[in-house]
């Protein structure tokens, strides 16, 4: 690596900001994200939300594609167990998530980059806290290894 290249790489790392995708169920976590905003709880702007009706709508492929396309972390947010608007979508999400983690590891990606959280519509504060914490975890892990190659 030439001197100039190394400098660029270093500069890149310093400036590097994680890119985090949050796939949120409409009835709980998406509402919690709104709530965090309206109560002015701040969290890292690295986190960006995509809305789905229910955590049960999330296909494992969505997460894999996100990672393959360069997201540094993916968080799926749903309602607390027993509170799913569609009765049990979140249980299905949980079952798929166990399986998803294994695939992620097989792809050579740290499993900590994917996460499943139950955040209720009233838990604006929890949403902000989880985002801060997830952002910190991803910062420690550094950029998505698939993005480097």
């Amino acid at each position, binding site marked *: 690596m030439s001197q100039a290249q190394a400098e660029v790489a270093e500069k890149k790392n310093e400036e590097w900001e994680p*890119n985090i995708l949050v796939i949120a169920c409409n009835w709980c976590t998406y509402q919690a994200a709104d709530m965090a905003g309206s109560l002015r709880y701040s969290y890292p702007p690295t986190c960006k939300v*995509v809305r789905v009706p229910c955590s049960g709508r999330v*296909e494992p492929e969505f997460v894999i594609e996100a990672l393959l396309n360069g997201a540094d972390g993916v968080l799926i947010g749903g309602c607390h167990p027993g509170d799913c608007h569609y009765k049990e979508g979140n249980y*299905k999400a949980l079952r798929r998530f166990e399986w998803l983690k294994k695939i992620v590891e097989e792809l050579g990606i740290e499993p900590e980059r994917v996460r499943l959280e139950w955040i209720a519509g009233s838990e604006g504060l929890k949403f902000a806290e989880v985002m801060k914490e997830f952002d910190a975890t991803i910062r420690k892990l550094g950029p998505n290894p698939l993005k480097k190659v």
Partner: protein
Amino acid sequence: MSNDEKPRIGVYICHCGENIAGAVDVKAVAEFAKTLPDVVVVRDYLFMCSDPGQELIKQDIRDGLVNRVVVAACTPRTHEPIFRKACEDAGLNKYYFEMANIRDQCSWAHWHEKEKATEKAKAIVAAAVAKARLLEPLEDRYIELTKEVMVIGGGIAGIFAALDLANAGFKVHLVEKSPSIGGNMAKLDKTFPTNDCSACILTPLMVEVANHPNINLLTYSEVESVEGSVGNFKVKVRKKQTYVDWDKCTGCGACLDVCPPKARVPDEFNEGMSLRGAIYIPFPQAVPKKAVVDMDACIKCGGRDFSGKEPRLSKSGKPILAPCEKVCPTGAADRTPYRDPNGELVELNVGAIIVATGYKVMDKHHFKEFAPEHPNVITAMQMERLISATGPSEGKLIKPSEIPKLLEAKKKGEKVEVEKPHTITFISCVGSRDNRYHTYCSRVCCMYMLKQAMILKEKYPDLDIYIFFIDVRTPGKDFDEYYMRCRQLGIKIIKGRAGGIQPLPDDRLLVKGYDAEIGKPVEVVTDIAVLATAIEPNPTLKELARTLGINVGAEGFLKERHTKLYPVDTMTEGIFIAGCAQGPKDIPDSVAQAKAAAASAMSLLDPGKMTVEPLISEVNKEKCTGCGICVPLCPYGAISLVECEDGKKKSEINPALCKGCGVCTAACPSKAITLHGFTYDQVLAQIKTIARWPEIPAE
């Protein structure tokens, strides 16, 4: 506008006054949006949702400039319907609309990081545009609504809900688990704050229910299963076996007294202070006034057990009958025909359901410190029965320990001297506002203690009455005036907790407490101690809630959709709640909620049909392999495998049942299921746009 027309997207960015523009550089986002694929128009405005803001969008649609609309503003949870309507008004299919949430989820949350907030807003807009490029036009669906309502629970709340709906022309099925309607109010003597006789105001309403042409009264019945959803619930109701032919029973009561002593059990209506036979009518004013046999108590006199056997014959050749059937003048209690112990299953089709299953009071035996075994320690509900003219002592105030003696004498037609109390002490908040039992306030106890004290003091001025209160809560209309009247009558109020009751050798009771006003322990010697035990949800409420698919809160009462704005709605559309099943309350509040629930059901069902968003799933029969994986996954049973023309089985989704959760869509291994509004391509386009940020995927 046809589907395959190339997208021409208009992006409209809202300043929301300073709410967005204060953190996000709106102009920079607008410049960026212009670079996005298929975007042809970008505008920004101070308040997009205002009339002139919406007009900007409408004009562009009418001018044929745009055929897809993205509004970057607040949250779709509140504003999507508004902008969809604007699109529709201008002639665009309203599902050609997508929202970018750059206020609640961007400017507000990142107020102090303006540059980063602007970058994030750009990413959010880019993702929304990516989805907008793939939007499809959809048509709203309508579902037919059944104009019939099931009301569960026939207390005062259920009665009012049923009557209001029936009077408005709706068919009502009133399901009550006990043999009569009336609920707890039927047990009360007089009612605060006006002290009018409970039976006098309740009985006419009960009769009106029974005679109403629009009310199908199902007493001694319980809900067994509920399927379907708003507008079309399919309900199975179990009519329990009464073991009495109700078509023949006239409610004459001849059978009540002949039941032998071995078959006598504590009478629920008198709160266990007297006994009833195995065959019984719950109370004199019962509606319907019909007898039932309690099979757990029945000793099957003469082997008469409803198994379909003819009676045995005595030596003299006469059939041996049970006393009840022998005495019944109409043959209603006849025990020869076989009666199915499972009763009968009734199927109902209703558009809405109102749950009004009320409460029960806590049993005194939970409270060991208050000598619960002592017959003169009673609950306030027992006090209601003791002072009621239909109670065990016919309203005469005696010591509860004397009731058996009185009843025995009455049976023999003799006169007897019984002891009367000189002192009565009430203890408040027993089981309420107490971390060991319930943290909530039962709300009616302060008032009913004052009521009972007032009634007793007015009738027996020589009585000494003490009430231990933690504090007196009388916030209702005319309630504090009521309290002041009580004080003027000379009822002694002690502010402080009573800690225990000790039975004295002379059969009296020593109540030990603490008087917070003088800061000292106090002791009161009393003849009767009345415990204001907490109001609790019925023990079967949790199970009923599960059957209905509605929630209960931490304390076990039914949970309303929103405490302030939707107090009688539940999270399940079409199911409403009223009365004490929702939480402890008095009669005026129970009635108000019942009327609110009835009105909500009416406004829901009256139009006869309801628009539902077409955001539901659909199977592509060509791709479906018939594996059946999706079928058991659907929480609403909307999916079934049906045989196609070619003989192969394919999956099919019933659009009336699908709620659009997308669980099946995510699970189908053949990608045969599309969830409209959240299709695989649409969601993936958003995800990829964010994942690749700041690069914009071209395809």
